[in-house]
């Protein structure tokens, strides 16, 4: 009989080493952004009748603009968020946003972003962007890199106008903006 060390599940072992050796994880910015976008589908409630209330089916994340997070976004396409399959739709501004449960707007032009926000106002669409001033301008979620951390600003009035409920688990991590 060979002498073998007891088998410790490798992930547990890895986790212990991680905890022991380092104060914080380092994650690529785009990967962190993709992870947050995924979690918004787990921690947001859409109003009755907007697809996401029925069981099964698709949760649509729409991308507008030549988004820089492309390869990391690919990795959440087709993943399950609860009982929904996450689906990514890429679009140009003339497309209809009716299908979009969430809309990530990657335009540098403020007027273009505001035009999109005006078109989606009042409809149950979770709008997100990394553009500075996005939440103050009526967008629901604005991401920003602050002190090497990815932080969020959430405009709760815009959230209510869009008939969305974002779980306190996410709200607690965000700076609340009420313009």
């Amino acid at each position, binding site marked *: 009989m060979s002498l073998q060390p007891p088998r410790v599940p490798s992930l547990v072992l*890895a986790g212990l080493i991680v905890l022991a050796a380092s104060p914080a994880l380092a994650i690529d910015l785009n990967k962190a952004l993709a992870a947050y976008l995924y979690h918004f589908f787990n921690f947001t409630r859409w109003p009755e009748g907007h697809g996401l209330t029925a069981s099964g089916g698709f949760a649509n994340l729409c991308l507008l603009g030549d988004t820089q997070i492309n390869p990391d976004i690919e990795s959440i396409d087709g993943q399950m968020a609860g009982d929904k399959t996450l689906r990514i*739709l890429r679009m*140009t*501004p*003339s497309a209809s946003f009716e299908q979009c449960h969430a809309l990530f707007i990657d335009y540098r032009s403020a007027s273009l972003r505001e035009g999109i926000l005006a078109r989606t106002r009042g409809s149950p669409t979770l709008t997100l962007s990394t553009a500075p001033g996005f939440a103050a301008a009526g967008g629901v979620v604005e991401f920003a890199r602050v002190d090497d951390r990815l932080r969020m600003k959430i405009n709760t009035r815009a959230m209510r106008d869009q008939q969305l409920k974002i779980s306190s688990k996410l709200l607690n991590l965000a700076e609340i903006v009420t313009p």
Partner: protein
Amino acid sequence: MLGNAARTISSTRPACRRGCLCAALVLATAWTPAQALDQNPTELSLDELANAQVTTAARKAQPLSKTSAAVYVISRETIRDSGATSIPELLRRVPGVQVQQLDASKWAVSIRGFNSRLNNKLLVLIDGRPVYDHTLSGVYWEAVALPLDEIERIEVIRGPGGALWGANAVNGVINIITRPATDTLGGLVRAGVGRVEKGFATARHGMALGENAFGRIYLRARNRDESERVSGGEADDDWEQQAGGFHLDWQLSADDTLSLQGDSYDLKADQSSLRIQLDPPARIPSHDATHFYGQNLLGRWVHRDRGAGEWTVQVFQDSTHHSELVYGVDSDTFDLDAQHRLALSPGQELTWGLGYRRIQSAISGPNLTTVRGDEPFDVTSLFVSDQLSFWDDALQLTLGVKWEDHELVGETVQPNIRVNRAVNEDWSLWAAWGKAVRTPARSELDVALLALSLPSGRPSPALLGFYITGNPGLEPERMKASELGLRWLASDKLSIDLALFQNRYEDLVVSTLGPQFVDPAQGILRQDFFPTNTGEATAQGLELALHWLPLDWWSLSLNYARISLRADLPTASQEASQEASLEGGTPREQAWLQNSFQLAEDWELALILRHRDGLSSSTRSLPSRTDLELNLGWQAAEQLHLGLSGRNLSDNDEPDVLGGQIRIERSLYLTARYEF
């Protein structure tokens, strides 16, 4: 066949899906102060995210591919920034691919040698539908009308692909994969004007057709001016093209997708041809208005069996028409394929599939006869491919074989074995061995065409007619290939991909001149050129692709290929000249160098130098050639991109092809792309 399901080579699968591999990566980097965790974003908890230090990764020169084949992928971004107006132009960047422009509309594209307008050893597929012409063996690139904006990526796989893709994938496969309808919602217009490229335009509109259905339509038109003859004067080769198409994707459920797509095109290109007749004058130089048109319709159903595998069923119908002064071909292809991919165990993936194809073609011409007429023929096939992984994917072994039964040619078997060893994250080595076949074209089997007539020099019969005739006993051409490759990610900023190959060809088709005989039916003396399997050849070479990012705003790509082709054909003078053209028709060395500069946030400049060695045949030679290309891009507004492109800026006086009379002129054009 089923191009974009299991058989596409490049994988977008997240790097770390299995827990054990994640753990291994974590352990490997555990003692660095902050963890660079290569994790699926969905596995990160909110707490981890909130506390994580975020970094911006340096641009990677090139992701390290795990495939054990010489693959080069042209991405959507590359296509968008290239300013290209056609697919052959894009293929110029791929090492080991020979691209020559013959006239305003015609291109010759080959992989690893044997370059000619109709290269019969290269298979080209659009979403699994071959655009390879089975009547004459080869691809009419001018008739590939798909707008470049429709393309998600182009995978160029050098080396034999017969074990997966079947016959005619001898020297390589080009897989053109279009974008899913979920990626093209909204509107796009691209238009251009120029001096040689007189005008071209594409319009596309994509929309949601319901909660789970998406679709788009496109229209395309282009018009190119005629070229100049080397001897002076216009070449009479101007052309125009119109095309339209659609793509629909239904997501029937989370695990079932149904796609329906179709294209229609019409192309008129002028050329000068010789009208051949038995009565004098035997040859009459004529204006030849060639005409291509066609439609295709393809449906695909994909069923994902989570954890168990994936089923794909694909069916298409393709109708093409091609007519010239000398001949015309009307062809209909019906194809049905089914494929199943399943994980037999965590380290073993099996893919197998069945195929049925029915081809009906009618060949006609003023001096042309066929034996079979338009009687259809069938091709049935079966393939199996098994991929085994060892040592956490550090060693991968792929065994594959395809059996094909071609009604006119008989059975062929094409096996392949591939092995890939990832030494570490930066180094990988691969090796492959395989056999591939090229099946004879209809035109080589049963067609007789008057090619030339001369006075016989006798009182009776007074005329000698040369005929190109088919040989119904012709066998497939066979090739055995050995390949070796190396990929090295030297740093975040430098990647190197090297491939070596040796191809041995047997039963190569050689045009043989038969004896003279009196044809009583026509009252002439007749001599036939007919194809025989009497040739052999060996090709060896190396291909290098290098990407380097010296500075944040500067990137450099260098592709280099060297090939030496030695043909061994029978010794008669007719065959000797074919041997010289085969050996000298492929440039021995080729290089392509692109320097791209991010001049300002919204401005990009790319300068491309490409070089090929000289070409030669028994009667002619062409000097080596260096061309300069330029692309300047300006993102003028969020939705508007403007580009200026220059081609052949060094303005060579020679044609780019042996025996050619046409000079490809310097061309400058402006393009605008507007997304709305």
